[in-house]
C-alpha cells in the first residue's frame, strides 16, 4: 500500500466516523493525531471487511465516552445507560461508519461488503500482527468524547 493510498483511506475512514458521530449525536469530532501505538479504548467495536484486500475495522473508546454517545443519540441520561446499550452503540457505530465508507471509497481493491459487528471489552487491549500489514490509525476528539479508529488490511 502506497503512502498516498494509506493517507486517502485514513481520511475516508476517519471522515466517515466523524460524520456518523456528528449526524447521530450532534457531537463534533476533530482528527487530533496519527496514532503510532496499538492501544485501544476499553470497548472495541470490530467488523470484518470482506474485500479483495481483506480488512478489519476497529472503533474504540473508553466506557464513559460510549455512555455519552448513547446518551446523545437517545436522550437517555448518562447514568441510566446500561452495559448492553453501550455494546449496541459501538456495534451500530461500526456498522454505520463502514456503510458510509462504502459510499466514499474509490479504489475497487478496497471496496468491501459489510458483516456483523461485534464488541470486545477490557483494559490494555493491544493488537499484535504476525506480519507487517498496513494499519490505518486515527484518534478523533471532541469536547465531550474521544474515539479511536483503526483499519487493518492484509
Amino acid at each position, binding site marked *: 500500500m502506497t503512502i498516498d493510498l494509506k493517507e486517502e483511506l485514513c481520511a475516508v475512514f476517519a471522515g466517515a466516523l466523524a460524520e456518523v458521530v456528528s449526524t*447521530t449525536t450532534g457531537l463534533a469530532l476533530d482528527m487530533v493525531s496519527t496514532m503510532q501505538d496499538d492501544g485501544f479504548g476499553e470497548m472495541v467495536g470490530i467488523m470484518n471487511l470482506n474485500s479483495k484486500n481483506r480488512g478489519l475495522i476497529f472503533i474504540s473508546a473508553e466506557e464513559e465516552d460510549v455512555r455519552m454517545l448513547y446518551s446523545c443519540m437517545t436522550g437517555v441520561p448518562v447514568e441510566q445507560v446500561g452495559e448492553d446499550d453501550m455494546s449496541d452503540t459501538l456495534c451500530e457505530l461500526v456498522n454505520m461508519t463502514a456503510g458510509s465508507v*462504502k459510499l466514499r471509497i474509490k479504489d475497487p481493491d478496497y471496496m468491501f461488503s459489510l458483516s456483523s459487528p461485534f464488541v470486545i471489552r477490557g483494559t490494555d487491549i493491544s493488537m499484535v500482527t504476525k506480519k507487517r500489514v498496513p494499519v490505518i490509525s486515527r484518534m478523533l476528539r471532541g469536547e465531550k468524547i474521544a474515539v479511536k479508529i483503526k483499519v487493518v488490511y492484509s
Partner: protein
Amino acid sequence: MKLLIVDDSAVIRKVIKAAAGVLSMEAEEAQDGIEALEKLAECHREISLVLLDWNMPEMSGYDVLVEMKKNEKYKDIPVMMVTTESQKTSIVAAIRAGAANYLTKPFTTEELELKIIECIGEEGDY
C-alpha cells in the same frame, strides 16, 4: 397510528421510537425479520408503516419486504427501508420489491421524521 420498527440494533429502535413519539405515533418493535412477521400476524391492522432494517440476522429486511408484499393482509402497508447499504442497486431492488421509501443510516431525527411523514402523510392518510 402505529409504526412497526424492525432493527437488530436496540439503539436504532430507541431513536426511531423517540421520533415516532414526537409525531404522536405509537411503535411496536421487532429485533429481526422473523419477529417482524410474527408482529404483523398479531397486529397488522394497527400498523400504519413498517421501518425495516436491511441487514439483520436470521432473515434480511429485504426478505421480510418480499414476504409482506406476497401477503394479501400486509401488502398495502407502506414499508420504508432503513439501512447502511446506501448503494443504488439496493435502493432500486427495494423500490422494485415494493418499498415506499428509503432512509440511509446515519440519519438525523429531522430526516427520519420527514421521511415518516412522506410515507404516511401529514394526517396519516394511510
